[in-house]
């Protein structure tokens, strides 16, 4: 009997500085993952959603690698996978625990979800959170989970455009509404509650301060609502520190997320953890630490 033939690897050698992407097409069904239509290194295809997802995964990988030396969502170079054209006029994008999934939108309110890089960055960050702090998706820890996705989603966009804190839009989901909607984006880190105000959709319900914290059973305790409070804290810290937000404010938030915080932490626990990280990285009397402490005070999380 002959031993099995061992073939040398012919594919690209695993390199953590490079993404390993695969985009699938669900073809309007709700069956995941769908058919693979573009793999790493393959040329663009004749489908804008596929190419937007592919490029967005690349930009997200680039932020986490360049700014935080993190290789992919698991930190060990795992493949980055996405499915587009999920469902019939499906008005949403989500993270299913192993891949990003994008609907096409209904064409009336949402024009599609892959057009916004901050949305793609937001979804992949759910993967990073899952492998690190694993913040429980309910109540304040759930709102922190959402906020962290918005923060790094915004940073992916800023990093890819080379925008510093003054040039950044601080918006999440810019461009995903159709022209019929009165609104520029889904959320604003700079001014939570102001992203849209529309006859059909209503007004952006996000609070910007603990005084306006929303108690609700819906949305797992308002995880997409109350995230406005820690979102604004990040914006305030980043703009006070200045420069490129991913370099210092982003570093503090990243090391908090990947540090010792509990999965059930509340806003106060997360705020304390960011201050502890800032002290460790920049010193207790540093402007960075002062900026972080002041930011949490301004949104009413710390007194």
């Amino acid at each position, binding site marked *: 009997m002959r031993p099995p033939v061992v073939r040398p690897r012919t594919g690209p050698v695993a390199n953590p500085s490079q993404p390993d992407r695969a985009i699938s097409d669900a073809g309007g069904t709700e069956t995941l993952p769908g058919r693979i239509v573009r793999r790493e290194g393959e040329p663009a295809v004749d489908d804008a959603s596929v190419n937007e997802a592919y490029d967005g995964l690349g930009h997200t990988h680039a932020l986490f690698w360049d700014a935080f030396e993190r290789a992919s969502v698991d930190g060990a170079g795992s493949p980055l996978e996405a499915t587009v054209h999920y469902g019939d006029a499906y008005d*949403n994008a989500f993270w299913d625990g192993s891949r990003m999934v994008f609907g096409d939108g209904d064409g009336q309110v949402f024009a599609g979800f892959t057009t916004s890089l901050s949305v793609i960055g937001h*979804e992949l960050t759910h993967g990073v959170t899952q492998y690190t702090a694993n913040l429980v998706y309910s109540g304040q820890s759930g709102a922190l989970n959402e906020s962290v996705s918005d923060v790094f989603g915004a940073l992916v966009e800023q990093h890819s455009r080379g925008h510093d804190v003054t040039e950044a839009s601080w918006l999440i989901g810019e461009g995903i509404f159709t022209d019929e909607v009165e609104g520029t984006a889904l959320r604003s880190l700079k001014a939570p509650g102001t992203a849209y105000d529309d006859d059909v959709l209503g007004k952006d319900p996000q609070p910007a301060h603990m005084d306006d914290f929303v108690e609700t059973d819906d949305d797992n305790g308002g995880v997409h609502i109350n995230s406005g409070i820690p979102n604004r804290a990040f914006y305030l810290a980043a703009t006070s520190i200045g420069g490129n937000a991913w370099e210092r404010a982003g570093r503090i938030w990243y090391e908090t997320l990947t540090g010792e915080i509990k999965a059930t932490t509340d806003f106060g626990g997360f705020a304390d953890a960011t201050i502890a990280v800032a002290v460790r990285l920049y010193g207790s009397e540093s402007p960075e630490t002062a900026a972080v402490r002041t930011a949490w005070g301004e949104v009413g999380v710390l007194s």
Partner: protein
Amino acid sequence: MKVTVTRSGGFAGITRSWHVFVEREPDEESWVVLLRKLPWDEVTREPSQPDRYLYRINCEPRARTDRPDSRDAPERILPEPREAVIPEQRLTGPWRELVDRVRERDEEKRELRPAAAPDDNT
């Protein structure tokens, strides 16, 4: 019986709600068949996958006078109000069928209703 479906969460975090009054539906019997199939006791709390929808399905019996003794009245199936909260990834079988049907029916009626008319909420 008023059946209300509330969909919250999703990436946008925009809550939407649809409802149907079963006894006012032309095919009331087929709604009753569907209501009988709902596995209320199999619903367990499970965390939502990030950015997926969370569905709240509420069935509220209502006093009626037209056929109080009918064995097939929705109130005989569900004499007390009941509510189930189901994350999107668990919304399958009769639950999914009910949610899709309530939404479809409510949106049909909204299109027929004059825009200025008050919401039919009683």
